[in-house]
């Protein structure tokens, strides 16, 4: 339980120790520790996610570069990098780094998240948009660097955790999860092929 940690970052330490000891038990990882707020718990998870995604980026760098992936793509979806005032053609790895940087900056921004103990209500809306953007990194890895993705996932189970988290707190809408889920055969007639819909 996080209560036994006495530092100012009890929740973070608790989460990290769970990951160290038992990262396969995703349900336990996601489970809200008693006596804590959902907001702060999500916040810690998102922070952790950013931290660990960096490891994935390091793996990706070996094979994802301007030549192999000149554009940020995931399946048919192609994204505009929001990090530039002018529409710029960022290659995928740049996009990923920018996105991760942006998310990290936002989560550490004193203006929006002045405290890790209580989150201002107006800042909660950023969770979704952060999660949505982080998801694109997974998606790109899955569609274009499957081997790296799977090796990473086997080791860390980060994507599984992300899915659970998103599912639990409704961070990313189901129809935006474009990575096919093995256990769930698509039962939604319209959602799973959004790109074809868009092009109508």
């Amino acid at each position, binding site marked *: 339980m996080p209560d036994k940690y006495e530092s100012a970052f009890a929740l973070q330490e608790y989460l990290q120790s769970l990951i160290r000891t038992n990262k396969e038990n995703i349900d336990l990882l996601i489970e809200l520790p008693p006596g804590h707020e959902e907001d702060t718990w999500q916040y810690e998870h998102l922070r952790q996610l950013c931290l660990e995604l960096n490891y994935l980026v390091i793996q990706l760098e070996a094979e994802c570069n301007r030549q192999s992936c000149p*554009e*940020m793509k995931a399946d048919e*979806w*192609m*994204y*505009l990098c*929001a*990090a*530039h*005032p*002018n*529409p710029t053609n960022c290659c995928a790895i740049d996009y990923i*780094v*920018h*996105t991760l*940087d*942006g*998310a990290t*900056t*936002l989560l550490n921004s004193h*203006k929006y998240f002045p405290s890790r103990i209580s989150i201002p209500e*107006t800042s909660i*809306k*950023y969770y*979704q*948009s*952060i999660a*949505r*953007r982080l998801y694109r990194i997974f998606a790109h890895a899955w569609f274009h660097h499957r081997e790296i993705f799977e090796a990473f996932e086997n080791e860390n189970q980060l994507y599984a955790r992300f899915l659970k988290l998103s599912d639990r707190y409704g961070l*990313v*809408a*189901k*129809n*935006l999860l474009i990575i096919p889920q093995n256990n769930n055969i698509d039962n939604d007639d*319209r*959602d799973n092929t*959004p790109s074809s*819909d*868009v*092009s*109508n």
Partner: protein
Amino acid sequence: MGEHIIDEAPDDSLTLGQLKKIVKQLPNKQKPKEISFSYADSDSISREIDEFYNYAEISQCLENKNIFDEEFGEAWTTCTMSERRVYIEYLLETLELKDPEKRFLSAKKLLYIAQGTFGEAITQEQHLEWIMENNKLLRKCGALLSYFQALKLACHAHDYYSRPDFNADRQVYIDDINTEIGFYLTLLYMLVETHRGDDSFGTELAELNPPVAVFLFEIIASLREKEKNAKGYPVKKFLLLLWKVILASLGGLNDMLRLKNSARTINGLPPIYNEGLLTKSTPADYYTFQNEATQKYPTYVPPPCPFIPTSSIAASLFPSANNHANGNDSSGQNAASINGNGNSSQAPKSRKQQFQTNQRQPFIFPFSKSTPSVPKSIQEAGDLYLKFMHISLGTFQFWKERIEMKKLPTGDIISSISFNENCIMENPLNNNDESQIEITKTDKEKIERIEILYKSILPHLQNIVIMLLKLLLATVSSNKNSDNDKGGISANNDHISESSINSSTSNGNTIEEIDIMRHREITSKAVSAIILLMLKHLKLSHVLKFEFLSQLLVDSNCLLLILKLFGLQDVSLMVKAKNEVENMNFFQYCMDINNNSTNEIKQTDDNMVIDDQQESYDVHQPGQISDPQFSISNETEVDSDYCWRNFFAAINFLKILQKLTKRKTHRILLLVQYKSSAILKRILKVSHPLLELYALKVLKNQIPFIGRKWRQSNMKVITSIYLSCRPDLRDEWISLTDVDSEMDDALPQEQNLRTLVKFYNERNYFPQYDQQNDIYLDDNNRNLPDIFPPCYTKSLNHVNSAYIPDDIMLDDSFLENWEQWLQEEVYSFSSVKPHLKSIDEYYDDDFTTTIQNGDGSEWDVPPTSPVDGKDPFSSIEWKNISSYELKDFEQRINNSGFKFYDFDDMEINTDSVTNVDDKTNETTYCWPDEMLGPLAPSEVTIYQPTPYQSEDED
């Protein structure tokens, strides 16, 4: 003065109360019906939404609906909440897709949702409900963030495409991006409108990075730079959105008094409760009175003035000081008379007394212990002054800023105004009122937001003002025909004969023409509201912010433009104009779609002439009568046939005029010179108390300067002023005792005000200003996206590489002797250059010869002391003197330099950009009797000091 307060007045004069009674008893001689318009922040939500959509683009609604239906395939209203949410989130995500086609489609589907999924609404009320409901949901899904992000990207893309080095098929790209910007503006507008009055939403708007209002203002400013490519830009939508965003994030009419009191409390002044005070006296008035009284009765010891030490009043309040009355007795003034340069408004005019007895001869009251030392009436007068004393926040801030200016070691500029430092010590400003009013957090935030807004837009303020006024000008400088149309449509039979407009064209208006007129009216409404709101809010924050904006407005010919607006259109017709085609209005159109009458609508699309004007009237009426706030005044019949937006704009313009000229003799003289009285008198024909009141207020300011003849023949106007404008306790508006000295003081007064404004801006915003300027020039750093700050990583490298050149070539001798060099040149050099000095040097590069240390008699010569080297400010901002020339101004109106290319958007001709250097220095005030004609253009010289223009240099 003030005799109207006392009930028993001498027989030969009337009190205000008596006069009002008499007027009431008079038979109501065919006074026109009063118009039932009630002023508010904005019109009803459905009308405001109606007005957002142009007729030309209304068919998009149908298109959006079809696209949406094709994909969604179900009934939106019967979906579960989570199904809707999922779909909205999906659409928001796709706004970030790279392919513009896909983004367009998503935006259109979002539009249909934001527009209330009208396909499933049966009545207009239901439609409105769904608009509210859907937008609430959109907000919950984080739509604001996505919209804003998308808008920013689109605007930057627009910047990118309009760069001169972008060649390939520019117009195609720009058209596309304009459409896209239009989508996002619409989405944002729907979101903002549906959250009217919701403070938490206002907070959200202000907390984005940059705050939405700042971003929109910057866009307006940037339009000036790229006027070439402004064709098709959805300017009207921008303006409407900006107006609503200001309302939402800073507050509107209802918040004003509360915010004002909060601001007063923050500054240590007591709040005002009695807004309906019978009369007011200002510290300056009281000061004047004290001087007069103590001269006549040296034994009189006046009670001290609260908050501001009396002796520093005159010195600190010169811009508003109205103490012309004591122009001839200044010899006895202790504090203010030591005017070094004689430039300040206090400049004593030792005019010879024409009278035989010396009125200033002290009168010693026979001393006795039982009687008071002065006549009772004098004491009573003193008490009355105190009783009605109103220390406005502005006065107070002026005074404080003056102290700051005095403190400045190099403040030679102001040493001309000397006042006793001791006085401040005597009367320290301790907040003895234990802040009786509680400042709510939201109010405080709002006041802070004004500060942030000002700080951020200060570098662009000049461009913003010019752009807003240009857009306003574009609404009048149309072809003459449109005026005819206007007169025709509004054919209100009793008025039509009076106007020179021929009404023959009345029945031949195509939808296209009506749409253009409507577009102009709406633009003018939005601009007027934005300017007025900004003036009001800046005044709340700090009076000198307000003064700076008004200075820019005056310099950009705002006064003349407003008078033109009133002059070219007959206000009594304008407020009744009907430029509406009911079945092209958004709500009605959507309903018609549902009723499968789409075929008919398609027909009307093609410039169909409306045959039956009456039809559109009838449909139009009901919305206006149902004005909730208006309580019909019992005796008179009311006229509910009016055009809300035009009425609103007219009142706004009058309010702006009043705000810009109140107590500024120089600007009042400009109004006199423009012959504004004739125009204002025409406005009085419209029977509406608020409109009349403001027209009268503006007239009242001018009356001392207008000339005896005019006054003689316009006693009616003077009576109305007496009846409706609240008098000050010391208010010599009918005839000044010393008009000449007042007119002589006008210019120094204005100059001093400008000096103080300059000082204030530099003191508080200079560091930011400089930085901002860099940012402004460097496009990359402008408008950082909110979530993913762009180049934090990148810019870091950039900065490093810029400042640490990798191959520094050092001299051999230096390499050997650097330690010595360090000792001699660095460590032993203890005296650090003052910061300001370096700024001065920086600006010295483009220091032009126009700056002379003058006596302040000319506009472009700041009233500085000759010690120029020490003065860090003298060289900075007076170097860019430019102006619209009035001739050009006129010409543009005549030649209709502004044309409408399509219905929504206006194109701005580049060749109409005038920034002609105008270094004319003379003042020509003329009496109206001598004027050549209406607005005699050749006589008018407008000064155009335009500080802070350095953006333009590159």
